[in-house]
């Protein structure tokens, strides 16, 4: 088990290192003087740009040797200093990210967990019922081929604009302030539902397809045939098949995280939901590179932590990783 974790942790550390290095290298790879290049893109007033010029010179430390700049970059990062925001003058990048993060997590976590559970269940059912297989499977393929932002647009158009069941945009009613009151919670939930549904549906399609294919494969395996020839009830065989199929699905969960996060970002933009996705759009439109780099690092760290949680769950589910044998 320790070998398994040592390998995983090595990969995570390496990934984080690569990500930070990319973050460091990109502005320095830009053609021309990076500071002038950056300043020229900001639509800020002259006094602000003066201040920014000073900050950039200091933070990039371009007069120092490259390795020293690199170390300074790491030091600032480990102290949680992600720089000031340009789009929102007066706020720091970390402040903005902390304010937006809860909204994104409120969408992502339930969508990932529920779509995983529901997708696995429905996929397993589809594997043994022909009628279900012929209806659910094509729907699942179409769902997993749908761009998140488009499904968001369609749901918002039909359920919010046409039928008026849900509000079209925002995270809560403009007349309210965030508070633990019944009124606010209700407003929050009605705004939350459509972006959640978008994420849930697209991810659900992928899980259902994966589980269905895995179960069919497992039901044809030798152990399943052997159990059946012993006269074991179909329920038992299916339970074993499900248990075996869950393992690759969990690996898939780790791999799909990045895609779901991407989906959440664009879904938020459609609904004007004040999470990380909307922050990214503002950062891009205002050429706010510090904000963009901060969000980039946040997403990387978030995905790595989520991967680590999946790894721990994997050890609990797959005994082979515990006994020192190599799990798949």
């Amino acid at each position, binding site marked *: 088990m320790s070998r398994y974790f040592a390998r995983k942790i090595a990969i995570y550390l390496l990934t984080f290192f690569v990500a930070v290095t990319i973050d460091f290298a990109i502005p320095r790879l830009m053609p021309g003087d990076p500071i002038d290049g950056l300043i020229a893109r900001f639509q800020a007033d002259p006094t602000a740009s003066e201040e920014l010029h000073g900050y950039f010179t200091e933070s990039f430390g371009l007069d120092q040797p490259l390795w020293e700049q690199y170390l300074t970059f790491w030091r600032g990062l480990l102290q949680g200093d992600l720089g000031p925001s340009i789009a929102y003058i007066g706020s720091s990048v970390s402040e903005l990210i902390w304010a937006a993060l809860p909204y994104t997590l409120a969408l992502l976590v339930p969508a990932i967990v529920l779509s995983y559970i529901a997708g696995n269940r429905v996929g397993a059912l589809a594997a043994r019922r022909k009628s279900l297989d012929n209806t659910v499977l094509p729907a699942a393929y179409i769902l997993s081929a749908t761009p998140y*932002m488009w499904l968001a647009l369609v749901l918002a158009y039909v359920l919010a604009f046409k039928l008026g069941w849900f509000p079209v945009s925002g995270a809560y009613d403009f007349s309210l302030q965030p508070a633990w009151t019944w009124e606010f919670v209700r407003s929050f939930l009605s705004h939350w539902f459509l972006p959640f549904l978008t994420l849930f549906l697209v991810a659900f399609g992928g899980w259902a397809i994966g589980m269905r294919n895995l179960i069919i494969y497992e039901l044809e395996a030798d152990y399943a045939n052997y159990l059946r020839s012993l006269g074991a009830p179909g329920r038992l065989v299916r339970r074993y098949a499900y248990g075996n199929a869950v393992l690759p699905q969990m690996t898939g969960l780790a791999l799909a995280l990045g895609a779901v996060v991407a989906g959440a970002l664009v879904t938020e933009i459609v609904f004007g939901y004040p999470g990380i996705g909307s922050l990214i759009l503002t950062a891009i439109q205002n050429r706010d590179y510090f904000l963009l780099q901060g969000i980039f690092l946040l997403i990387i760290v978030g995905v790595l932590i989520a991967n680590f949680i999946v790894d721990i769950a994997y050890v609990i589910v797959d005994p082979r990783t515990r006994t020192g044998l190599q799990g798949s």
Partner: protein
Amino acid sequence: MATVEPPVESLAGEPVAAEATAPRRRFGYELLYFALRNRKLVVGLSVVLALLVLAIVGPWLTDADPFEFGYPIGEPPSRDYWLGTTSAGQDVYAQFVYGLRSSFIVGALSAAIASLIAMTIGFVSGYRGGIIDEILGMLTNVVLVLPTLAVLIVFAAYLSVGSLVAEAVLIGVTLWPWAARAIRAQTFSLASREFVSLARLSGAGSTRIIVREIAPNMSSYLFLVFILLFGGGVLTAATLDFLGLGPAQVMSLGQMMYTAVYSSALQLGMWWWFIPPGLGITAIVGGLYITNVGLDEVFNPRLRER
């Protein structure tokens, strides 16, 4: 899918003299036989080909330029404007067909680049094994956990992508890890087969064995990987374009949705503006996925049973 038995004539009764060419041709006929009877393959491929034809021919059917202003403002679809106009007075049909073109170009190019990287890494790492495998595996794992879109956003924002080719290259170099892993696993199992050992005994080099012995034996698998990468490339490009990070001078389906959301098409109820681009993407990618399942059944007889 109902079980389809191949016609007996095509499997037996051929003259022995034609042995050298006949098996290969017979194999081809058999594949075609199953291909035409596979409903998934026929439906999926028809959708993709129909859209491809629209992407090629569509722009010729209109005089409008996708970026040109001056048409009526916010018209719903009519005989003059097949898909209506935007709130800035642009022709949605022109934008849609030019956008389809971009989707196919970026999808194909990025899939080609990603396949090339995935094949190089997968073949080398699966065939050579040892320390090279360890290093390449580590590289693959690192790129695999890096959230692709986050990397792309930072790259595209700094480099300000100017052309479809640049966008395709960016997407291609982030899309390959899962494919490399899959190809490595396949290569690994092929590398221990007799015909590979035989080639090695006869003194063939690694490159020759990979190109002449291993790759042809998994060509159908590589083709499936390419199709999936194609779909992935189209979706990734749409997301980048939707964030306003694609090439601004080239019309794309993602850019249409970006402009539509930005111009509050949703709040104005202008469905003809944002429904076509997403529908186009869904149809291309969904068609590709279903084609992939169908082809898998055609190539792999065990799957035909269902």
